């Protein structure tokens, strides 16, 4: 096999992908429309950082498009997308934090828009902050996204057998925190 035969084939294959973007692009746009809000909510609530959620969501979709098409069905594609996002989150937590103050976006220093975020943050935010990242992931996938233990196992890479126990403990802990928070709220005028 000569180089002349290899190179045009590879480039031709690539050019084919670029030449027919409208259909795939539209298909992706539909999938994005249906899945982006749920993915952002997952990333934002689990990471507790909306700016990070923006970045990771974009990266998740770019990696998703590079790895898989929608031929396997929307449910499988969605699960795969969450798996990519979960791995990116894990990678972010493993990385040492070296952010300087110049790297922090301006919005961070602005007063938070309490009107739009107060409700959900007041209910779940403080309790989520006290949970471990892995527990936050498990709880969100189970109770916000409604995934089964097997699906959570596929997304997180954890053993299916251990998810039941981990989830039970995490749920018990967050329920206690929510009750305590509720009691504190009632005591305050």
């Amino acid at each position: 096999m000569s180089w002349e035969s290899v190179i045009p084939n590879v480039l031709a294959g690539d050019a084919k992908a670029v030449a027919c973007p409208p259909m795939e692009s539209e298909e992706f746009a539909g999938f994005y429309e249906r899945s982006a809000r749920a993915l952002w909510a997952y990333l934002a609530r689990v990471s507790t950082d909306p700016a990070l959620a923006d970045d990771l969501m974009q990266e998740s979709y770019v990696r998703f498009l590079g790895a898989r098409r929608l031929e396997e069905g929307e449910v499988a594609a969605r699960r795969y997308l969450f798996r990519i996002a979960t791995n990116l989150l894990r990678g972010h937590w493993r990385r040492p934090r070296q952010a300087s103050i110049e790297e922090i976006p301006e919005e961070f220093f602005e007063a938070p828009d309490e009107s739009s975020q107060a409700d959900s943050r007041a209910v779940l935010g403080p309790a989520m902050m006290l949970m471990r990242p892995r527990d936050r992931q498990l709880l969100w996938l189970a109770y916000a996204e409604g995934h089964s233990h097997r699906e959570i196992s596929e997304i997180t890479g954890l053993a299916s057998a251990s998810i039941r126990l981990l989830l039970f403990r995490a749920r018990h802990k967050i329920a206690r925190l929510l009750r305590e928070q509720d009691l504190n709220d009632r005591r305050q005028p």
Partner: protein
Amino acid sequence: MTLFGCAREKEVAELLKLGQWPHACPAELRAHAGACRVCGELVLVSGAFQKARVEAGSQARLEAPGPLWWRAQLRRRNAAIERIRKPVLGAEIFALTVTLLVAAGFLVSQAGKDHGWLAWFEDLPKALHFEALWSTAPASFDSNLWLVFPVLAILALLSGVVVYFASEKQ
């Protein structure tokens, strides 16, 4: 109630998933959830997470899907080019290694012998009819190697230019 759950937990979870809790569920099950710690926790946590999901989804500032699509295409294209470049680079390294080994072997084999093969260098100007230019050359410089090195340098330069244009075109 078992160690990690309640026998009716699945029932409650199903109603929560279908959105039938609490209004479309039997009063008896609601009373059970009020008394059972496991089912009570399930109802509390599910409700909080469902509410948070709806609110967080509405806060999302979504980018248009088009740029993401093209960014992914660009990344795929770069990955394809990288896949092509890897074997080419390997072939180049292999060719260079073989050339160097052959040259080293040749020099080692000729090290002990008389250097008659160097006569080729001396005959090179004659073969190229450079005698016409010779009159201006310094007479004290008896070896003709001074001409060989610039020729080799020009050849190397031209090769570099050709390789550069070839890679640019690719």
